[in-house]
């Protein structure tokens, strides 16, 4: 298989974007547009918001993102292994076990460190 089969992907992406833009454009012809100060204020349950929402956010999220990057990248490495697994035989299994073992140890360490707690 060659890169040709990826052409539809490009077409799909383009069409997806074009479709949204076209719909928004058509909607623009139909929809009313009557802005006012109150309407354009941020919604916060009927009150005027206090301060901006662009604040430094709790770094918990960052740690999960980091964990995700580690694990997901490692897991991607397993894909080629999985595809070729049946032809590689028993040795591949041991290799994989070691690999997963390292991952699991990493997870256990993160767990023990309390990183997996959100609060």
């Amino acid at each position, binding site marked *: 298989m060659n890169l040709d089969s990826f052409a*539809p992907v490009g077409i799909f992406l383009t069409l997806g974007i074009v*479709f949204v833009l076209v719909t928004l454009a058509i*909607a623009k012809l*139909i929809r009313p547009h009557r802005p006012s100060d109150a309407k*354009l204020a941020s919604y916060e349950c009927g009150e005027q918001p206090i301060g901006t929402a662009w604040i430094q956010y709790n770094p918990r999220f960052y740690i999960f993102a980091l*964990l*995700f990057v580690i694990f997901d990248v490692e897991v991607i490495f397993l894909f080629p292994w999985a595809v070729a697994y049946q032809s590689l035989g028993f040795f591949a299994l041991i290799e994989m076990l070691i690999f997963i073992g390292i991952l699991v140890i990493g997870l256990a360490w993160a767990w023990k460190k309390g990183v997996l707690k*959100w609060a």
Partner: protein
Amino acid sequence: MELTPLFQWIDTQLISLVEWLGLPIWFAELLEMVLAAVAVLLMAFLIVLFLVWWERKLSGHFQQRLGPMRTGWHGWLQTIADGLKLFQKEDIIPTNVDRKVFFWAPVVCFASSYAAFAVIPWGEGVIPTDLNIGILYILSITTFVVISLLMAGWSSNNKYALLGGMRSAAQIVSYEVPLTLSVLGVIMMTQSLSMVAIVEAQESVFSWFIWRQPLGFAIYLVAAVAETNRAPFDIPEAEQELVAGFNIEYSGMKFAMFFLAEFLNLFLVSAIATTLFLGGWQGPFLPSWLWFILKTTFVIFVIIWFKWTYPRLRVDQLMEFCWKVLLPLAFLNLIISGFLFRG
């Protein structure tokens, strides 16, 4: 009732058309691809129209109500009315938002969910493109949804939206890991990442991978529900906590795009579940595409059923469930499969 002859006919027609016009032959292929993309877009539309209606009807009957009844027979026109109405709704762009990001968030959201449809095998020979890394492609392209939700949450300059965006990012990103791991078990057996190959490996009912990968299927289903932000994992748009979550400031068509993408994603994860574990289009008597639709609809039914039964988890419990329960289970599943399905 198979669709392959139809495609072949279109193919020959296009080629003759291109030849008649004196254009190079790759132009016919291009046209064909565009046609396929448009067809899938229309199909996606039909799916969303159906799904929204179906979810409302089902939720109604789960609750001994009727659901939409008055727009068309048993409300079948309801979703169309909703869509047309959203066309006419004012599009509010609050003063404080980051206008560019605010604008592009729904575009990214819709386009990425839609692009994943490029490798869905609808039936025997009915697949826009049979990528050799099909499943990997889906897993990666749908990750863009996270970015769009983050974009929406951040750009809205609204605290609820921010919380919603952050929650959804953390959630989707986390559940991506067990989801990917649960898919690995199937790949080990098929030795291919191509969607078509995966389906072809499950010829009879008994060779469906759900029988050989029950744990993998369970993990996949749970992770998929979480990936689509649906109850019991719908914390990013938890109405009772965050009012409407990341799309709180969106109105009109932009909101509709998020709405559309949400249901497309729902269909997508169910379609993948069908492909990977339920034998895809395989099945007796009925045409293959019908089998595919039926199985996918069943998976969607189960997911909707979850939604209307369970309370929602709290955000930290959600994360802990992912990392402390689902992920170890996924590893376990992988190891078990490794032992069981050695070559």
